[in-house]
């Protein structure tokens, strides 16, 4: 043993945050109680949880640590002349009203229809400074990992667990294994965090992250802005991992500074000091390590019906390895060993909690500016929050999109999950900046290709899946 050996075992970022939130430790007989700093709720996965705690005569224990928004079932078209919102069904409307009622009754702040704070839960909470480094953040939604971009442990829970958190501010948990995903080098121009996420998922495999908490590290990850880190962490679940995180750094601190619910003044400086100490110690052991070269990643598009079925735009779809690949290719209407770029596209969707932020809007607008959407392609651009909507409109991006022939909608999940009436029709080929290309995810019979916002915009112009680098002038001259 060397005399310089550290006195304590080196720890991962995940271990540090996890240990700081253990109320009672796990034993062989029972899971531990994990404390939740921030509980986000939306209309789809909360009604049965409120009903459950009420039926037991329990209260919401910490309404001050609970925050609600409306996003999934909400129409993205404006109200009619009578002020009525075009809900897809009465049931969708009643689901929204149920959350409004539950929040009012239990004293929970809701970013409702009249609030400037409303947005997709994973877009609005970071914008408001609700999400902070070192927290445990949960939501009845599998893309909660998004908040891990701030060095928080953030994961999706089921509705029973929403009830547990409402009533106790805790969850019953066993510690997952840890996996580090290191992306070395630098992304090339025209390649975004979304492409990195799709490349990582293709590497790990769809179920490959199951049972793990991911930490994203390496030069290419450090090089991402906070929006990019959110996109990256957002898709952790698509590799099967419930949680993915990036260690806080100066970018994190500056991004959070001054936001509505962030600490202020001296309290912020103290918090920032603590946040910057949250990182994996040298020599800390992971249960699994994965390494990629960021400079080798190209713009990606999926060819199948799981998010790990990704390949560089223009590369041929692979020869099927098994029946499932065969089924996926035939569902998508793509041929093995042929690029997917030859097929006419019916719909382009730009939005979602993966790519509905201001930087995404800009990336798409930069390509669509002064160009026209190909005839016959329906393009929907849906900002992730009211704040994104306002900022984009202030920069005139809405005009860029509408002048090109795209629709500019109100914020919400929209065509990502297609439960508000924004749907892809059976058999249509949709190129989407969302996160799931499952059969029928965007409507019964819909065929979905996952891409970055720049690739989506280039596709809208070309009418088929297209490499955005052909449309970005800076790159053309390089």
């Amino acid at each position, binding site marked *: 043993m060397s005399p310089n050996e550290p006195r304590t075992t080196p720890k991962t970022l995940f271990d540090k945050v996890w240990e*700081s939130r253990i*109320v*009672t430790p796990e034993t*062989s*007989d*029972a*899971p531990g*109680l994990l*404390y939740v*700093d921030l509980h986000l709720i939306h209309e*789809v*996965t909360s*009604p*049965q949880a409120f*009903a459950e*705690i009420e039926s037991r005569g*329990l209260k919401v224990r*910490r309404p*001050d640590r609970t925050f609600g928004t409306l996003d999934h079932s909400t129409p993205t078209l404006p109200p009619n002349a009578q002020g009525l919102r075009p809900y897809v*069904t009465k*049931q969708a409307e*009643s*689901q929204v009203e*149920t959350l409004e009622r539950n929040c009012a009754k239990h004293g929970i702040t809701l970013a409702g229809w009249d609030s400037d704070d409303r947005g997709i839960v994973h877009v609005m909470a970071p914008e408001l400074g609700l999400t902070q480094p070192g927290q445990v953040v949960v939501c*009845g*939604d*599998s893309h909660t990992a998004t908040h891990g971009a701030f060095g928080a442990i953030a994961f*999706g*829970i*089921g*509705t*029973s*667990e929403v*009830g*547990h958190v409402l*009533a*106790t*501010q*805790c969850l*019953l948990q066993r510690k*997952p294994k840890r996996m580090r995903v290191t992306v070395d080098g630098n992304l090339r121009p025209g390649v975004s965090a979304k492409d990195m996420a799709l490349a990582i998922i293709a590497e790990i495999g*769809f*179920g490959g992250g*199951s049972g793990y908490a991911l930490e994203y590290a390496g030069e290419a990850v450090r090089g991402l802005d906070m929006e990019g880190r959110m996109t990256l962490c957002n898709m952790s679940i698509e590799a*099967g991992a*419930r949680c993915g995180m990036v260690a806080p750094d100066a970018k994190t601190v500056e991004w959070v500074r001054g936001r509505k619910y962030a600490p202020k003044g001296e309290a912020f400086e103290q918090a920032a000091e603590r946040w910057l100490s949250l990182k994996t110690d040298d020599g800390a052991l992971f249960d699994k390590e994965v390494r990629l070269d960021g400079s080798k990643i190209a713009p990606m598009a999926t060819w199948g019906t*799981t998010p790990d079925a990704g390949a560089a735009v223009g590369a041929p779809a692979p020869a099927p390895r*098994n029946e*499932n690949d065969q089924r996926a290719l035939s569902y998508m209407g793509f041929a093995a060993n042929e690029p997917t770029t030859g097929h006419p596209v019916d719909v382009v969707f730009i939005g979602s909690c993966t790519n509905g932020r201001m930087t995404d809007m800009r990336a798409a607008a930069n390509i669509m500016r002064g160009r026209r959407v190909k005839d016959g392609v329906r393009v929907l651009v849906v900002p992730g929050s009211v704040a994104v909507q306002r900022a984009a409109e202030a920069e005139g991006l809405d005009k860029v999109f509408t002048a090109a022939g795209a629709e500019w909608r109100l914020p919400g999940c929209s065509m990502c*999950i*297609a*439960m508000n009436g924004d749907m892809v029709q*059976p058999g249509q080929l949709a190129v989407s900046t969302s996160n*799931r290309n*499952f*059969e*029928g*995810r965007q409507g*019964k*019979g819909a065929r979905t290709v996952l891409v970055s916002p720049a690739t989506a915009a280039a596709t809208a112009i070309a009418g088929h899946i297209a490499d955005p680098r052909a449309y970005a002038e800076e790159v053309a001259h390089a």
Partner: protein
Amino acid sequence: MPEPFKVLTSQTVVLPQKSIDTDQIIPARFLTTTTREGLGKSAFYDWRYKADGKPLAGVELNTVDAESHRVLVAGDNFACGSSREHAPWALLDYGFRAVVSTTIADIFTSNALKNGLLPIQVDKETHEKLLARPGAEVTIDLENNELRFGNHVVGFKVEPFARRCLLEGVDNLGWMVDRIVAVETFERENGLESA
């Protein structure tokens, strides 16, 4: 609170596809419900019905007697995707009490156990035998952690606390509420009390 689960003997329904995601188990457009009940008729909806809502011919899920077929055997990587608890609710409401696959998604497993639907992960060989025999009679014995069919006996693991909850009918939330004093102490010691 879920029904206790001890020993179940029933026939299987086999869905061999890999990576059946929760969007297939219950498509998103059925998620506007505010209750847990009644989702069984929409389970695997897009696999079972035509565009006009009429049942598709030749789909086992439309014809099988759900009462006697309470075990679902599914392809690898079952129930990946969305965290919607509507997925186990739909499977339970359809009539299933157990799901068998090689790998089953984390969130789904946790959701299913809380509702009395038992997810069982088995080895490849056992899985292949079950996939090859739709309608086979199987016994799932949670008391002995054993899955039995024909002359096969295989062990399986269930997280010990969830197992106890299922066997003894211990209620998760009630158990947590009993420990609320520890939560209060934790908040006090870590400066996490309400402002």
